[in-house]
């Protein structure tokens, strides 16, 4: 299914229902949200807003490539990826990755795989506002490690 890159919020329940068909017994959904609390590597100030930019054309192509890779690895009935852009506030939803399959292990694994690859490959960049100042978020080594554990492309 084509990935959706949009400013608007999404409805998880509606997206889950949309993936249900007669072959589906498991829908695994991941939602990424704007965390307000500062982490250990973020300094002391809470996030007051987050702005997401992307590379139109390449972002969609990369996420579709990742989805195709997931479909090659697991028997999936459906995949939905929705990623928001623009200025978001604390507790806002950012991204939905949903995978539907006959059985739960395939659905869980595919959803995690897609998120791990989206974190390292999909061209988005976050800028966070804290204390009235805006700064670009740095990529994390833990994201590269998560991607590596899935091994090489099939």
């Amino acid at each position, binding site marked *: 299914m084509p990935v959706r890159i949009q400013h608007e919020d999404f409805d998880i329940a509606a997206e889950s229902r949309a993936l249900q068909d007669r072959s589906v017994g498991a829908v695994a959904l991941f939602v990424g949200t704007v965390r307000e609390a500062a982490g250990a590597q973020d300094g002391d100030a809470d996030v007051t807003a987050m702005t997401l930019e992307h590379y139109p054309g*390449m972002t969609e192509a990369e996420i579709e490539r990742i989805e195709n890779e997931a479909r090659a690895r697991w028997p999936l009935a459906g995949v939905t990826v929705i990623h928001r852009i623009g200025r978001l506030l604390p507790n806002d939803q950012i991204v939905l990755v949903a995978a539907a399959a006959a059985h739960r292990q395939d659905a869980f694994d595919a959803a995690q795989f897609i998120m791990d690859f989206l974190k390292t490959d999909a061209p988005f960049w976050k800028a966070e506002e804290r204390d009235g100042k805006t700064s670009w*978020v740095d990529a994390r080594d833990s994201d590269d490690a998560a991607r590596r554990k899935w091994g090489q492309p099939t």
Partner: protein
Amino acid sequence: MSEPTLTIRYFAWMREHTGTAVEDMALPAGVDTVGALLPHITAKSRGHALALKNMAAVRVAVNRSYGDLQTPVAEGDEIAFFPPVTGG
């Protein structure tokens, strides 16, 4: 006769350094890879040089697929430079 044209895009803090999100440039004579193109870009301004100072921290895409300094470039290509991605 049309001038050979490359489209160069910059994102995030690299765009802030170069001062532009997108620009066109002619394909310089003898340039056939991203690596060979690089000095022609860093020469454009101090901001361009600063954006691309540490290529280990720069991701490269040619025609919207990931590449690197060895990736070939040809007339009409779109080349993008950006920091490691932080979506999700």
